[in-house]
């Protein structure tokens, strides 16, 4: 039992939570404002991861700098995706009538394209590099510096993003859009511009998460899907469209993953995880923190 109280597990849970929070945030933002299910989110992460990998391999610059490039790259992709496809879908009455299903399929198409595009370009070898990998003692725990970097940067980025949407004018407008699409356009909020920015930020967050994770984990063309699933679990736990709730969901998922496994058995990790996920969905579909979202 003393294992449960160890700093090692606490740190691991926090690190995992910070990754999940970051990954889920972008997904949540896009779902919240536009009701689009971006199943390619994890694959966008991998895109960011590859970017940082290659920058490190070719120029020797680590993700602490290249993450800005990764964000830029994925944000541009987000803008392109919004301007070329999403705007068309939202504007087309027949397509917009079944937005969730249609967006799911479109992004599934994206996911396949990104995965196989990456694999065509870089082969499907798992990629990893050693950066900030010296080991630090934190209390009685030992942790790689890069994981601490993920924890720090992930937390700052997630918190910054949530605060931004909580307090900035743009954030207020976005939240108005999240709460009531029709009403928001009535009070003169330029939905189109907000949606464009939300896409940039949402995709950019995925790129950032991928860039950070590439320091600590291997990057492969098909490695994104598990992150997408985790991110979905997180935002369901926290409530679809509820950014603050997403942070809570991330912490909860990390706790289940680290402590749930430590207390029961790692064999039940997935059963535990999906079990909690499904129970929450059935009992409180609006999420643990969510108000009735429908």
């Amino acid at each position, binding site marked *: 039992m*003393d*294992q449960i109280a*160890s700093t*090692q*597990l606490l740190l*691991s849970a926090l690190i*995992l939570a910070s990754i999940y929070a970051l990954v889920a945030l972008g997904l949540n933002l896009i779902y919240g404002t536009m009701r689009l299910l971006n199943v390619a989110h994890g694959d966008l992460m991998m895109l960011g991861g590859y970017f940082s990998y290659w920058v490190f391999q070719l120029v020797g610059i680590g993700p602490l700098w290249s993450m800005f490039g990764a964000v830029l790259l994925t944000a541009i992709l987000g803008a392109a995706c919004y301007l070329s496809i999403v705007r068309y879908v939202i504007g087309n009455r027949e397509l917009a009538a079944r937005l969730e299903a249609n967006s799911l399929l479109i992004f599934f198409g994206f996911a396949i394209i990104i995965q*196989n*595009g990456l*694999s*065509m*370009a870089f*082969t*499907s*070898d*798992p*990629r*990893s590099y*050693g950066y900030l*990998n*010296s*080991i630090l003692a934190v209390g009685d*725990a*030992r*942790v*790689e510096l890069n*994981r601490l970097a993920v924890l720090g940067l992930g937390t700052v980025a997630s918190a910054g993003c949530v605060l931004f949407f909580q307090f900035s004018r743009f954030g207020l407008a976005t939240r108005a859009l999240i709460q009531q699409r029709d009403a928001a356009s009535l009070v003169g909020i330029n939905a189109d511009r907000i949606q464009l920015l939300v896409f940039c930020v949402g995709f950019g967050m995925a790129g950032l998460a991928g860039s950070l994770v590439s320091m*600590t*984990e*291997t990057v*492969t063309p*098909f490695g994104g899907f*598990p992150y997408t699933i*985790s991110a979905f679990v997180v935002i369901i736990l926290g409530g679809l469209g509820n950014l603050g709730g997403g942070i809570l969901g991330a912490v909860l998922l990390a706790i289940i*993953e*680290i*402590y749930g*496994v*430590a207390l029961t*058995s*790692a*064999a*039940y*990790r*997935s*059963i535990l995880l999906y079990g909690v996920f499904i129970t929450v969905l059935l009992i409180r579909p609006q999420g643990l923190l969510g108000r009735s979202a429908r």
Partner: protein
Amino acid sequence: MSFRNFALKAVLAAAALSVALPSYAADPVKIGVGIAKTGPFAPAAIPTLNAYQMWADDLNAKGGMDVAGTKRPIQLVVYDDQSDFTKEAAIYEKLITDDKVDLLLSPYATPFHFAIVGVLERYKFPMVGSTAASVQLRTIKPGNIWFPTSAIPDKMGPELVSLMKKQGVKTVSISTLQSPFAQEMEKYVKAALTDSGIKLLSSQQYAMDVKDMTSIVSAIKKEQPDAVLSLSFPADSILFMKAAREQGLTAPFQFVLVGPTADFFGKIFGKNLDGVMTMGHWSPYQTKWPKGMPFFEAYSKKFNQAPDYLDVALAYMSCEITEAAVAKVGLDKEKLRKEISSTTFDTIDGPVKFTGVENSTTPTMFLQIQDGKPQIVWPPKEETAPFQKKGPWVN
């Protein structure tokens, strides 16, 4: 590679193929393969395909394959199974009935082998397998498929325990991926541990989509075992090694089931891979097998990376066996079956002879990475280097 670039290459390749084919004097020997070029198995499967390709290129450079005395060029017909073994039966059927290949080479990994057993039987088509290992393979009717591996869990279990005993291991902790091969291994290791004098401190399984192995490793670390067995596959082997390094797991005997033999593993872990034990029964440093080192060097040169000491070795062995059998009896299926079933073949892994579907000559061995090189450390009479305790993890 950009799309245009890719398309261009595809067109060029097709053109090259259509031009190149008639230039051969004799009819090419068509050899069929279905393997994961895309999907999650692709990273592990591509080196196997590389081995096939290198073998084919070498033969063609030497004027072709010896078919019972006449040299004929060979042509690989390769299809992608998209890492989905439920597609494999159809692919091998296509190879046999539609492409009318003369010979077959095996797909990557155990389930994919199992998925084509029925097809091979139906068409009475002999094929030498490669990267498959399971106690279940013995339940297959012999005659159409053979497995050159000697890393079968019911043999590895007792051998691994003997090795640990010899190294003075008193306590052991095991973690196992919930995947058929790892679970078989766990079962036989545990069976061999009873009455061995080695105490099993803990044994835990974890699910396939594990993301963080901190709690598993930290539980093991608390137990301070002499030996740690991580019965894992590449993805979670990486997680295990990272967590072990991070937490400074100090057990002198650290065994990682699948992964350490792969080139990318060395690239990720560098010096930290030294001292790690793994399964495998081939090393280029075994002087008894003179074909080993040249193969190692040729492969490394051609693909700019070391061959996987387990998978690539097995894949190449299957080519060598096929080649030798064809040289002697030609392409007749019945004769091939008899030849493969009865002859002792000389391979990069020494002599191989099959009894039933199984390689009955090559002993079960274990590798340890020392100075970045795979050394055979067990059994004693095959040893290329003595066992070393796992040193401290480095930065």
